[in-house]
């Protein structure tokens, strides 16, 4: 039900994470647009990927508008740069009212600036801590 055809998903950042997500969402029937500054990064996309690619700065509002952010169902800030993910996700959530916004954040200290805007945050750091806890059985304090 979540993945009905023609739901537009914009993925900013085509690293391992962004590329894999774009591939999955595409296979699930979404209309996917991947944006990355580096055109070579699109090599990471799986062969089955049939969505769009834009080689440009995803933090540029003009680029996001061209990608269709105004009618997007989901936007994912998946670059390795917190600042870039921040501007993409805040624009998506606060200006264009995209219903589903996900953001990768390496520095948990940035959390405060996005609180209350309906942005779902993915912290690789916290996930690693939790996984360590699960594997080792040693309790680590949640940060």
């Amino acid at each position, binding site marked *: 039900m979540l993945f009905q055809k023609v739901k537009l998903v914009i993925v900013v950042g085509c690293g391992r994470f962004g590329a894999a997500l774009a591939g999955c969402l595409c296979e699930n029937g979404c209309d996917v647009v991947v944006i990355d500054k580096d055109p070579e990064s699109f090599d990471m996309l799986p062969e089955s990927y049939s969505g769009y690619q834009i080689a440009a700065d995803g*933090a*540029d*509002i*003009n680029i996001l508008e061209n990608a269709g952010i105004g009618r997007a169902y989901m936007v994912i800030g998946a670059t390795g*740069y*917190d*600042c*870039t993910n*921040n*501007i993409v996700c*805040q*624009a998506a959530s*606060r*200006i264009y009212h995209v219903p589903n916004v996900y953001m990768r954040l390496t*520095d948990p*200290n*940035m959390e*405060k*600036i996005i*609180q209350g805007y309906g942005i779902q945050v993915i912290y690789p750091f916290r996930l690693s801590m939790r996984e360590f806890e699960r594997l080792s059985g040693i309790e680590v304090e949640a940060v």
Partner: protein
Amino acid sequence: MKIVVAGGRAKADFLIQSLVDKKNQVVAINDGEMYCKYLAGKYDIPVVEGNPCKKDVLDDADITNFDVCVALRPDDAENLAICQMASKIYQIKKTICTVANPRNVELFKELGVTNAISGTYMVASVIEKASMVDELAKTLDLEDGSAVITELAVKKEYPICDEMVMDVNFPDNVIIGCIVRGKEMTVPNGSFVVREKDKLVLISSLQTQKEMLKVITGGDSHASL
């Protein structure tokens, strides 16, 4: 005032100089080691070395409850993050940054930055204003363009010429501030008759300025935006 200046090279140097001259309490944050040494040598202010997008660096600068944060990094996204951290984490009320992309002027304001400055944006608006009308002596933006003062000399062929002020069908949010005839300034009432060569000083919103000019000049091609 207590002001933190984050990032920037020549801009930061110039700004710090002028802020220090005016007896402000300034803290500089810069990620260039040599540049930090230069700033610390030139000014008697605390200089923190590090990337101002990082909270631990901002913590070091001890900027809680400062009055103003100025972000001058070349990357717009970084400046946004700095300004947002300044206001959300350190309770700094005024945040100002430079932006490379003129579209970000509006965007950043909507996202909570007090003032975003773009060189391109400013040049574009000056050119736009300059090319608008030859006979437009001046237009002056107030409150970042939400209010505009326009000064305009009346020509004989304008529909407003020889009309009473109350008969002029101005759009909403337009008022004639005063009329200068020769060397005399008058704040006109409704029965004041506008004559050729009168200088009108009008206050309007940016949106109504175009419509207002049309009413005055009758859609004179030179006077269209």
